[in-house]
Structures are given as C-alpha cells and as structure tokens.
C-alpha cells in the first residue's frame, strides 16, 4: 500500500522538474534543425479532430500514405474526437512546433470553434500556420425531387412570403451549414425555420423523405441523391458552376449577390513551427494533392481536389473570419 504513493510522488516530482527544465530551455526549434526535417524513420501525427470513418478521416487516410512516401517519415492518422473538434484542435495548437504534429483546420468550420467563447477553445487564428489546402467542397442548396420549388428564386420568394415557415435542415447546431444559413439570412433578408440534425446523412434523409423543405450543405453530401434524382439541386453558392453539378446555376447567376461559401480542407501546424519545416510539409502536401491516384479518390468522394498554398490559405482564413464573425456574435447574443 505504501509503495504507490511513494512511487507516484517521485514520478510527479520527476515530471515537474523535467517540465521546469524544458520550460526554461524551450524555444522554437532553431532553423538549422529543419534542414534534416523530417528525420528518417520519425513519426508525424496527422490529427483528425473527428471520429474514425468521418469524412475528414477518410480523406486523411487517402492522402497520408502519399505524403509519407515523399517525406520519408511515417505519418500516422490519429483521431481525436470530442468537444465539436475543439479537443483535437487544442491538441494541435498546443503541440510542440517541430512539424511532427499537424491537423485538419478546415475553413470555415474551425471559425465556429474559436469565435464562440463558450466552446472554450484554447486557440485562435494566430495559433496555427497553414501548410496548405488540398481540396474544396462547394456549398449547394437542394430540395426533394417533387418539391414545388423549381428554382432558387421560387424558394426564396416563398421564404419572403412566409418568414420563419420554410424548414431547412443542418448537419449540426453551430456547424458550417448553420452558419452559412445565417449568412444567407443576413445578406438576403430571409428568415428560415432552421432544424438541426445529427449528421449530413440525417439531413439528407429528411430531404428525401420530405420532412424538411430544403437543405444547404457541401455538394459531396448530396452527391449520391443528386445523381439518382432523389434530390434536385437549385443552386451552387459559388462564382462558377461546380464540376460535379455543371448544369446547376450559381447563386450569383440567379441574381443574389452572395460570396462563395465553399469549405476548404486545410491542414495546419502550430504557429511557431520554423518556416522551412512548414515549406517541407507544404511541398509534400502539394505533391500528394497533385498525384493522379489521390485526385481520382477525392473526386470519387465528390470532393474537388484543389491546391491552395500556405499563404493563400492564411489569406482566405482571414477573409472568412471577417465575414463570419458578425454572424457568430449575433448567434451568441440570441442564446
């Protein structure tokens, strides 16, 4: 009985001493260290802040083996689910900035995590340095195939005629769908009856069964039902048509001036990571994105492979933050 407290006391002491030591000497790894990054045989953790088998996870498992080959180091996909992704993102933000830990910081999803103080995120935009974005997912609006709304104008006119009556499903409260719907409401002066479901699949099921009037979300979540004709896409919230649904008109083309809402599959390292380490990861990710096999698999998942460099992602992140922050602030006020 006595052994255990004694043992742990020593362990705790050792831990605190060691922590103090690293605390004093801890500084961003010097730039020379990056020359040999990554050391052969070292392990890089790719933190996916959602469950095994979720969309992010599957994409990570497609790309990781290709990056791994280029870098000559092991890349392990690690699922850290919880707290609506905050747990996993906290982990990335607080990881040692040595390039051996990076994670999914999808834009705009991540904005909803740290702009809402009640989520207790220990990070913000400044905590991360993007290494790039490998794909985009255009946002579309879809209705049941038998819906009486044949065009986006008919739908929005009906919403205007009866504010708060037309129902729309989201994949989660305060997720991308929810925020994008609020952006639409604000910019176009509309009022939807927003109903939250637990997943993109439940949201789609509600459209197919006719439980909700319409739904908004990434084109990938509607793709199967769009192809089979169960769901009719009315518009894509982009400046140009989506290659997955080329005949669907853009929202801008239909006469509504709304900025593109596409989500970007960005990856980031902690912000203090040395520049040349970021550059190494960036080039590996870029090569992986441009590999034909990867592109084919991404397209199979109705996700558009599209390379965005580290600096482009940083710029995009800043822009989207400035559009979305007011919407989130407003949502918070209503609670």
């Amino acid at each position: 009985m006595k052994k255990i407290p004694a043992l742990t006391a020593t362990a705790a002491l050792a831990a605190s001493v060691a922590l103090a030591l690293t605390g004093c000497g801890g500084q961003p790894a010097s730039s020379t260290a990056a020359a040999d990054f990554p050391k052969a045989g070292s392990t890089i953790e790719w933190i996916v802040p959602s469950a095994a088998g979720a969309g992010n996870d599957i994409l990570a498992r497609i790309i990781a083996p290709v990056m791994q080959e280029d870098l000559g180091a092991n890349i392990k996909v690690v699922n850290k689910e919880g707290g609506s992704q905050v747990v996993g993102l906290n982990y990335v933000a607080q990881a040692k900035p040595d390039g051996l830990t990076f994670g999914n910081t999808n834009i705009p999803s991540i904005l909803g995590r740290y702009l809402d103080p009640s989520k207790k995120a220990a990070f913000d935009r400044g905590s991360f340095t993007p290494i790039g974005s490998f794909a985009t997912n255009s946002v579309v609006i879809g209705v049941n195939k038998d819906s009486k709304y044949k065009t986006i104008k008919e739908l929005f006119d009906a919403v205007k005629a009866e504010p708060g009556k037309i129902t729309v499903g989201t994949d989660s409260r305060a997720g991308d769908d929810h925020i994008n719907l609020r952006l639409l409401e604000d910019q176009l002066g509309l009022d939807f009856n927003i109903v939250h479901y637990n997943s993109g699949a439940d949201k789609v099921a509600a459209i197919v069964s006719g439980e909700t009037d319409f739904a908004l979300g990434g084109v990938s979540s509607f793709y199967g039902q769009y192809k089979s004709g169960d769901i009719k896409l009315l518009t894509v919230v982009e400046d140009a048509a989506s290659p997955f649904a080329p005949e669907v008109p853009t929202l801008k083309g239909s006469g509504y001036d709304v900025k593109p809402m596409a989500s970007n599959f960005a990856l980031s390292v902690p912000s203090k990571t040395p520049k040349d380490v970021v550059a190494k990861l960036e080039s590996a990710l870029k090569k992986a994105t441009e590999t034909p096999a990867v592109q084919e698999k991404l397209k199979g998942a109705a996700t558009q492979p599209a390379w965005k460099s580290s600096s482009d992602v940083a710029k995009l992140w800043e822009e989207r933050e400035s559009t979305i922050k007011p919407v989130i602030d407003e949502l918070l006020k209503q609670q």
Partner: protein
Amino acid sequence: MGFDQLLGGLATVFTPEHLLFALIGCVLGMLVGVLPGFGPAAAVSLLIPVTFGLDATSAIIMLAAILYGAAYGGTTTAVLLRIPGEASSIATTLDGYQMAKQGRGGPALVIAALASFVGGLIGVVGFVVVAPFSRLALEFGAPELFLVSLLGFALITSFAGSNPAKALLSAAAGLAIATVGVDSGVGIARFTFDMPELFDGLGLVAIVMGVFGLSEVLGQAQKGPLGVPSPLKVARLLPTRTDLRRSALPSLRGSVIGFFMGLLPGSPGAATSLASYAAEKKLSKRSKEFGRGAVEGIAGPESANNALAVSSMIPLFTLGIPTSATVAIMAGAFTMNGLIPGPLLFRDNPDVAWAIIASLIVGNLILLVLNVPLARVWIAVLKVPFHYLMAAILAFMFLGTYSINGSAFDILIMLGAGLLGYVFQLVKVPLTPLVLGLILGPLLEENFQRSLALSRGDYNVFLQGPISLTLIGVIVLAILFGAVRPLIASMLKKKTITPVASKELAK
C-alpha cells in the same frame, strides 16, 4: 431486383480471389474487434488502407468482412470477459458471461456464431424482399422516432431485477448522464464544467466498458488473487442438442426484430439487441434462467445484431443514406472506390452491388466455419490464471478506451463508470437500465426537440399520421399490460395474503 441477381452475386463471390479477401477480412476484423474499444466502425476505418490497390468489388467485400469479423470479435470478449467491445454486445454479456462462468463458454461462442449466421442469412433474404419498399422506412420522421424511443423504455421492465425502485434509479441515472453535453435544441452546455471533452457528451463505449467490464474485474479482484477459481473451468466446447433446439426460435425472432430495427433511420443497435433479449425473456418458459446462463439470451440478441447489420445497409444501397456511423464508413468506402451508394449502384454496377450483398452471406459463413474450431482458442484465455488475466484485461481496457478518441479523458470516464457499476452491483442495482437510459435518452430528447422545431411548437405533430397513432396505441397497451395489470394483481394478492402474514407475525 430479386433472387436471380443474388445467385449471380454469389457466383461472383465464389471465386478463389474474392473468398480469400473475405477470409482475410474476417480474420483481421476479428483480431482487431477483440481489442476492447475497437468496434466495427473503428476496425474498418483502421484497416481501410489495407484495401488500397484492390479493385472495388474485392475492396468492399473485404471491408464488409472486416465489419462482421470485428462485430464477432466484440462478442468474444462480451462472453468470456464481460467486456462489451461495443454497445451492441451488451445483451450478449448478460447470459454469455454467466455461461462462461459455468464452464460453458465454448457453447456460448458457438451459439453466438450460429445465431449470427442465421441473422445474416435472414437479413440478406429480407434485403432482397424488402429493398424495393425501403423508402417506406423514411416515413419514420422525428415524431415517430420519438415515440419509438419512448416505447423503448418499456424494455426496462425486463431488466429491472426484483426491485423496481432500484431499476428506476439505474435508468434515471442513465438519463441524467445522457444529458451531459451541448443541448441539441438551444445549444446550451449542460453539466460540462467548461471542459471541451464533455461538450459532445460522455462516450457510450467508455461507459459501457466501465459499467460492465471494469466493474466485473473489480468485483473479482476484491476476493483476492487466489479467491477466484470458478470462471476458469471449461467443460465442453460444442453446444448440446438442447442448446441448439432452445436457440432456434430465438434466432429467428431476433433476426426479424433486428431486421426491422435496422431499416429505421438512426436506429440504435444497442437497444435492438436488448429488445430481442427482452422479447425472449418474456416469451420463454424459462425466464427465471435469464441472467444465469440461458442460451436463448445469446441466440436472440446475436441474431438481431447481425440482421440489423445487414438491413441497415438497405437504406445505403437503395437511397444512398447511411443510417449509422458504421454504415457511414461503408458509404465512405464505396465512394473511395468510385461507387456512388444509392439506387444508381443497381443501375450502373449491378454486378458489384449484388456481389457485395452476396458477400454478406459468405462473410457470415466464413465466420461460422472459422469460429467453431476457434472457440477452443478463445476459451484458452480462461485458463490463464486470474492474477495474470486480471492485469491483462485491465491493460487492454486502458489501451482500448484510450484508442477510441486518443484521449486519456475517456479512461477517467471508464474508471468512473466502473466504480459506479461496482457500487451498483454491491447494492444490487441492475446495470442494464442505466445503459438503456443512456442510449434512449438522447434519441428521446433530440427527436422531441426536432419534432417541435419542425412544427414550430405545435404538439399535434406527435398525433399526425398512421404510424404515430399506431405507436401511441402500442405505448398505451404497454402501460396497461406492463404496469396496471401487475398493480391490480398485486393488490388482489395482498388482500388475500396479508391477513395470513400478520397472523404468522403475531405468533
């Protein structure tokens, strides 16, 4: 669509190459599924890279086999160690572990494999028959799902043990635990103490592993290193003829229950196997044996589980809608291999579609053939002396719980749940109502909130449509038969018995 195509699919699967991939998938899935915390979904996701480079049909056949193998691996630990690797194995722990304790772990495992096969087979036959009508399942919207969850609470009476007050406490505790996290209606964080780890609620698998698995280890360990001889004897490996006869009908009924529950959107797998268990207990002439090693208590839930696993693929194949996290992974696997799940699958790639459906039977057959001899190997685990076995179980649970989310926090939840389960066992509070409350609570609340959001606060939403009205009728009947009748019966009994009792006391 029909049985011709199914036969065609079988022909496709019965090539050496496809059979080999199915076999490898079953074995890999089983090995990973044995690890606590690795349910079918996690196993498939982990092993997806293994299928890179295969053609689409082989890849999906292999992934489906991994799914089944992992589910069976979870059953193994549920029977031998009372650790449900995932929530849907809970029902199997109730009698499976008792059988193992009585030295009948071998028969329990073989019956589980047989029942799973029956469930899979009936599931596939049902698949062919029902698939054209699967759209009807979508008639179950939020209000109907709320009523189904409400009906699910009737199950608690079957797991209540002898004292209703204690069962109520257990179920209420489960409900309370289920409310932790960000509320789905308004977005308020409840009982989260500002910890992001709690925002999405407490992990079901971690709690289930603690409440059932860890509490049992603690209960055994309290007797000391040498005080636990008995779960270790192994009498016979194969089930007796009586075992088989007693399992036949429960397997069939379980398959039917599982099949229909699998069609519902967002169907709760764990509640389904418990429903099958409850049905068998109610119908059996030997209901007193349930909880003490009744073979029906394994056959029913296991077949229900597997029939559900097959029928939950129907909405994916016919509508492209995955109804559970596990099926969602399969959907991901489809798209990664260039197949679009949904009705187009039958139009554009009918051969692939039917080969996959046929492989569901073949996978189950392989598992059956593998597991009759393998039962001997699994049983050998019980021959390990308890002082080492205990340490090994604790190590695996620690590791498995960590691996669910890569978080040490889940280990703490598992530990807390284990201590709660341990104390509950000491004071004889039944554990299963707690888990039922935990599973049904969120379904109940979310669908209630969602229904009212859809109707903008109009409670009539629960009274619309024939399905809702039927469900309400069933609920009323359940209350009448489940509660009022025993109440009257007990009052009648008391009138006749009480005078006698008081006379005896007076003596």
